[in-house]
């Protein structure tokens, strides 16, 4: 039996009188890549925030690996194994690339109760340093280890943020528009990177994305949102064929295609 790692039940969220999410249900199975798409204002990002704990919800439940995390703050969800990136990559600008990853590795060690090296010295423990180098290698950032994060290029920032998220040893990786603002060639590289990480870490991925090429190339299942509701959910082929989706989201061009 496949483990249902993320289970969202009837989540509602309103900002004042405006209802952004009108009862969303979704479930994600361990190991799959699940994409959420929809036109601007569909509520994708809000749903993302509710799932990661960045904002609370006004109704419904979020279950992570069988446990109700609806009322848990984000740092507890992260410790349970939820990693995330932001639409606009957020890293610690004043830190070097190395320190960015190190602080995340140390946070994971502390949360997991792994001793982080001798207490009397201010130097980071060798296990944390090794793990940091390992992550930098994995994301091709080793050459930039000493660079202050604020002077990184856009693509490097995105990769650094991914390294920070991976440092938490997540079981599920939540990516909010991982290729936003990238050039077409960078998008392909980013998609390859996600594919590679997914394979090497056997990780569940939940992502929102605008780029259809990226989505249809990566996702096992896709959920389509419009106006705060779920209008369809299925495999990429099912979504392509779905007449409702075609009319509200993919538009006329897709129908003609």
């Amino acid at each position, binding site marked *: 039996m496949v483990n249902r790692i993320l289970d969202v039940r009837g989540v509602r969220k309103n900002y004042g009188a405006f209802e952004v999410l009108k009862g969303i249900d979704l479930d994600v199975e361990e190991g799959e890549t699940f994409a959420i798409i929809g036109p601007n204002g569909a509520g994708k990002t809000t749903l993302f925030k509710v799932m*990661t704990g*960045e904002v609370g919800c006004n109704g419904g439940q979020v279950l992570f690996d069988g446990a109700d995390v609806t009322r848990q*703050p*984000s*740092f507890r969800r*992260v*410790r349970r194994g939820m*990693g*995330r990136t*932001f639409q606009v990559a*957020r*890293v*610690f*600008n*004043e*830190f*070097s690339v*190395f*320190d960015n990853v*190190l*602080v*995340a590795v*140390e*946070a*994971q060690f*502390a*949360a997991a109760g792994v001793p*982080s090296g001798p207490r009397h010295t*201010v*130097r*980071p423990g060798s296990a944390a*340093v090794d793990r940091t180098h390992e992550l930098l290698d994995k994301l091709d950032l080793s050459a*930039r*280890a*000493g*660079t*202050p994060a604020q002077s990184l290029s856009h693509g490097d920032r995105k990769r650094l943020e991914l390294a*920070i*998220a991976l*440092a*938490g040893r997540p079981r599920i990786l939540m990516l909010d528009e991982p290729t936003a603002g990238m050039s077409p060639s960078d998008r392909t590289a980013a998609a390859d990177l996600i594919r590679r990480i997914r394979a090497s870490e056997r990780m569940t991925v939940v992502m929102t994305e605008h780029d259809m090429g990226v989505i249809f190339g990566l996702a096992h299942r896709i959920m389509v949102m419009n106006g705060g509701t779920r209008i369809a959910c299925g495999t990429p082929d099912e979504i392509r064929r779905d007449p409702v989706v075609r009319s509200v989201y993919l538009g006329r061009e897709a129908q003609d295609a």
Partner: protein
Amino acid sequence: MTRAARLAVPTAAVLLLVSLPLWANSGVVFLAGVTMTSAVFALSWNLLFGYTGLASFGSAGFFSIGAYVSAVLLREGYGSLFLLVVVLAGLVGAAVSWLVGCVALRRSKGIHLAILTLALAELLRITLSHTRWLGSEDGLPNIPRPTLPFGFVSVDLAAGNNYYWFLCAACGVLTAALWWIAHGRFGRVLRSIRQDPERAAFIGIDVHACRLGAFTLSGGFGAAVGALYAPWSQIVTPDLGSMMHSTQPILFTLIGGATSFWGPMIGAAAFAVIDFGTRTLVGMSEIVTGSILLAIVLFAPHGLAGAWRRLAGARVRPNPNGNTAAGGAIGRPAMREGAW
């Protein structure tokens, strides 16, 4: 900069301070002692501001808690336990700080925290000035300097300049402890929170608990240094917890530079020198002092430490990793590769 050059300035500063009673008059020695306590006090405040990104305007409240604890116990004759008294004062300060932090940090940051801490410190000051057994407005005078027993020998800190040297050592210990906190794992966590609390939460850091921890530590260190101050000045008054005293570490930090660990200490020293140098300019000293401070804030936005780093950085070749040895957010980047 070579290692030798980097060590030269602090070594000279320490030698200057320690040898001061041998060649300077007692007035200068007294000012130097006060400056040392102010400097450590400013460091404790900057653990909150420069590292955690929280601005407290009531830090003098903790200083005065420590000073009063020390004053009362020394007047009651617990001088032989003075080291314990300092520790106890620190613990009392930390406990009060923890309580304040539990309430204040839950919802209020930024300007709200500034006003709330200011109000609580004022409340403490007014309460002290109406508490008769603590001397009301006049405070507690005639605080005896203690005698410390070390096994068979005992050191009378009241004699000669002994308390001054004790103060040097004690401030050194507190500074070392703060340095250790700021440069270790917890310091890195605090700096990540200052840069982006939400991102920090999403790497699994309990932002609230860490802020509370920093607030508690800051209050504890502030109180401990207050406890050292009491027998030096030999009088404590409610004004120790006044708003003017709370703004002192802020001023020192802005002069010296909040982004450097040593900034507040450099600021305190610079202020003391400026203040001392202008003492004879009757009626003019405030104008001269003010102008110098204004010039520093305008022309060195990262304080004296930032200006020094820029000067030093211009003479340093970038290392192979591409960062300059003098760059980095807080002081020199403590975690440069190759440092281990």
